[in-house]
């Protein structure tokens, strides 16, 4: 039986982790390679680097981070942020990433999903989506870090992503992100019911039971969190132990 996945996300700017992680035994809390390794040791099922570097030069730094991480972390690595072209995807995968996550760029240029999937395979194209509730059971897609409403219906968009060849959806709720009151279950459920591809829940995890709740109440395949793990409020082990105790298959 397929295990549900717990995915820590590291925000990286110019090769440094934003909001340094206070792991025991790590000298440089801002070093993404060290942090990824620490999450690996905690039993993370996958690791996401989200590159928030603005400059073009910064991309090279991110690729170095991926290259170094891939030498010592042997679980799947996903890189998101700043991926705009097929060449960006190719470079990122060649550096050692297993998947790329495309967000705003995919909304503005859906062909990127299709081209990426056709060339590299569906499995390595994850579409990241920021969405917000606009009515009863209705959500729209935002871009540029949740700042710009594209007036694009979420359910229409996820179906389009699936048709274009996306291998996975990472769904972030703008309404619950940072609120720490749990994942956005109605939105998550609506998306999981609309597509056959795996859906990763993102945004809102604030306590241990939030993860199991998402798995028990929706069809999501994975749950992602950043600051909760960064600040060591919870470890990946603790989350997995809680899920396991509630009968959810975990690695």
């Amino acid at each position, binding site marked *: 039986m397929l295990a549900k996945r717990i995915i820590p996300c590291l925000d990286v700017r110019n090769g440094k982790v934003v909001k340094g992680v206070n792991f025991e035994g790590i000298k440089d809390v801002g070093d993404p390679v060290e942090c990824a390794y620490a999450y690996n040791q905690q039993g993370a099922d996958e690791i996401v680097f989200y590159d928030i570097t603005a400059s073009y030069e910064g991309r090279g730094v991110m690729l170095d981070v991926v290259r170094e991480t891939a030498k010592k972390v042997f679980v799947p690595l996903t890189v998101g942020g700043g991926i705009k072209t097929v060449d960006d995807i190719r470079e990122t995968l060649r550096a050692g990433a297993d998947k790329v996550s495309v967000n705003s760029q995919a909304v503005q240029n859906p062909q990127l999903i299709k081209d990426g999937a056709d060339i590299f395979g569906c499995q390595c194209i994850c579409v990241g989506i920021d969405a917000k509730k606009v009515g009863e059971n209705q959500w729209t897609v935002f871009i540029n870090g949740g700042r710009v409403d594209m007036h694009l219906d979420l359910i229409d968009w996820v179906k389009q992503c699936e048709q274009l060849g996306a291998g996975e959806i990472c769904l972030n709720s703008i309404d619950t992100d940072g609120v720490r009151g749990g994942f956005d279950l109605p939105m998550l459920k609506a998306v999981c019911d609309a597509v056959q591809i795996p859906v990763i829940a993102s945004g809102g995890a604030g306590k241990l039971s939030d993860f199991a709740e998402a798995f028990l109440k929706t069809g999501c*395949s994975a749950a992602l969190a950043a600051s909760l793990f960064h600040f060591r409020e919870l470890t990946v082990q603790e989350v997995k132990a809680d899920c396991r105790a509630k009968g959810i298959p975990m690695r």
Partner: protein
Amino acid sequence: MIAIIDYGAGNIFSVKNALDYLGLAGELTSDPEAIRKADALILPGVGAFPSAMQMLHDSGLTNIIQEEAHKKPFLGICLGMQLIFEKGYEFEECNGLGLIPGKVEKIVAPDMVIPHMGWNKLEMQHDCPILRNMPEESYVYFVHSYQAVVPDEYLAAYVEYGPAKIPAMVYDGKTVYGAQFHPEKSGEIGLQILRNFGGLIQ
């Protein structure tokens, strides 16, 4: 020296990274001589069956692999595992390497998410040297939409996915191994499997 066969398909660097990490000498190569001289072979691969077979043909490696795989430890990974069967049916019927009897078809699992992606638990079937001494709960990482259909005697381990029973490790009882999962992405368990494979080298 383990030759990691580089024919243009897939993330071969991950396999090399894992061998480096384990202190096993590995070399990415498409050179027939290097493949003949190697102590063991790994055939990686990500992508579609027909295009990968075409790339193998174009590299002129098909016959060499078919010969050498029966002489020394050979491990196919993911698509590289699927290529070892007689036929594939991804998009079109296509001949494989035919190292182990069987074929490759779309996973049939109604109501289940396809691709089968993530960590699944190995269910051991027949003894297989590179799966010995594994913990009871051994999860490994899969990403695929097609699966092998193989006679039971070649099935070393499988995983359950809804109603489907998906071959995870196949073994011909001699030198040919195939892993549908990615040992190079399967954490400690995967590293142990690669370490065991390295241990087969005489």
